[in-house]
């Protein structure tokens, strides 16, 4: 189980789609990158799942829809991750595939996953919530995006 995704080659000169964890003393930082803000949000969501289990063992079988709205991109990232935390907790599901659409400060998404299976997923922790610590949504020089924050576990 890694703490970063395998790097996918991006289009020439563009930020590749990838996620990774970054260290925080008590908790876990989740970071997503991509050519678009949508991709960066999708990758951050994968990093969230990876704090709990290996995303590769979560079968993207069932789809749910989510939406949220916030006054800025950074609050929107936290809202998006917290919406997933809520769905994971109340549906007892894990997710491994995400499709994010952004229109202004409104996010509509689909998330695919399956019911939590403790024997197969061996969840390491329960994520309590996404936080505003080390929260950053920013654009790289090549136009690609980064979206990150610390999640409380």
């Amino acid at each position, binding site marked *: *189980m890694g*703490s970063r995704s395998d790097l996918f080659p991006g289009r020439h000169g563009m930020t590749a789609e990838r996620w990774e*964890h*970054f*260290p*925080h*003393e*008590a*908790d*876990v930082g989740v970071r997503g990158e991509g050519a678009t803000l949508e991709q960066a949000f999708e990758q951050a969501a994968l990093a969230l799942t990876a704090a*709990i289990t290996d995303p590769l063992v979560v079968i993207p079988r069932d789809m749910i829809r989510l939406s949220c709205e916030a*006054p800025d991109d950074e*609050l929107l990232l*936290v*809202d998006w991750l*917290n919406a997933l*935390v*809520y769905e994971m*907790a*109340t549906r*007892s599901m894990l997710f491994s595939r995400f499709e994010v659409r952004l229109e202004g400060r409104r996010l509509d998404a689909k998330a695919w996953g399956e019911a*939590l299976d*403790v024997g197969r997923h*061996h*969840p*390491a*922790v*329960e994520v*309590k*919530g*996404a*936080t*505003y*610590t080390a*929260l950053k949504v920013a654009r790289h020089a090549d136009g690609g995006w980064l979206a990150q924050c*610390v999640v*409380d*576990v």
Partner: protein
Amino acid sequence: MDIAQFERKSEFEWLIKPTGRMRVPGVIFASEVLLREMDAKVAEQVTNVAMLPGIVEASFAMPDAHWGYGFPIGGVAAFDPDHGGVVSAGGVGFDISCGVRTLHTGLQLKDIEPVKMRLADALYHAIPAGLGSTGTIRLDAAKMDAMLRGGAHWAVEQGFGDAADLERIEEGGCMRGADPAQVSEQAKQRQRDEMGTLGSGNHYLEIQRVTEVYAEDIAAAFGVKPGDVVVSIHCGSRGLGHQIGTEFLRQMVISAPGYGIDLPDRELACAPIHSPLGQDYLGAMRAGINCALANRQILTHLTRQVFSQLLPQSRLPLLYDVSHNTCKLETHTVGGRPKQLFVHRKGATRAFGPGHPDLPSALRQAGQPVLIGGSMGTASYILAGTRESMQRAFGSACHGSGRAMSRHQALRSWNGRHVVDELAGRGILIRSPSSRGVAEEAPGAYKDVSAVVDSADRAGLACKVARLEPIICIKG
């Protein structure tokens, strides 16, 4: 961190003088060794808290302080409601009223040994632990509200534990002023199946033995002797508390400019105590405290059931129950006069001294038990509040050992299976649904709890009473 930024007030007290937007000084209680090992973020966060409106005396950090959200974990700050004081959702944290309770058993190690393996398995079977675990209790809307108003009182009324437990819980087991109407449907939905569950991360249920007593008179008042076996439970308000924290943090971030509050860090999101949002949060947060108290009360009942089956001669009265992540209205002496203050303790334990009217009569002369959880495989401690602790940081002490390295780093350093085997070799049985969780919580990933406790004792925050070592650990 670099200690040059501090003025050393005493061997265990370090001062950050107020500069810039700081309204009061920052104070960290720690030995020089612990201070040097602390993340530089702790001083930054202590400084930021000192900028909040209405803060009184100082922004404090305990010896186990580490990098938190807005407030350091191990942060203590009190606010005067009549001088623009604020209440901060970030200053309480996500796991509202996460805490520790310790139960006596009346047993010695020799009583446990013959059934140790069966006891570990039976507790693991009875106590829902880890992600996705659910309890056997389902709360409808009316019962949910009754639980949020009643806390451990409600749990006792439902048949979980005894009325005698209640006086051994802060606030007598029921936080007044809880307002279930301020708790969102989403928060209640998250809690529907989670009553009586341990959770994950650093939460645990441990069977421990008393290996050393430092203050015999206080230990006698607490009913603790060397060789005694006790049970300690560390958990909080589960999904409900997390959701309350998430929702109010967001509202407070967005509303702060409207209240004229310029936040030095968004995670310090707060609202004036005398504002509708501040009052709504207090009502919801107090309901979260009751949820945590009810949850620990249910887990106590489940533990007693297991003991009564395997060790029928045991009796498990409650020694005490402390909460770590709270904001409470308390009376403290400031400038020689009593004042009503809203005291935030984020990863810090209340440590009221002898004679405090909030302590039950059986403990009033000895001071409040302060229960310090170690990491799995190391020691835990029982301390007591002292008269001096009331003068230090509003009657507060440390809460645990604090992490020494990130989960990320721990995962690269240890393998869960090896940690379990190594601890079994030392006579400590670990039961956990997650091998990776065990690796992330490996004893070596935590600071030396003994050094933290020694600093708390010598800084005058609380007095060392007894040391506990684990025998069985059910890890969430």
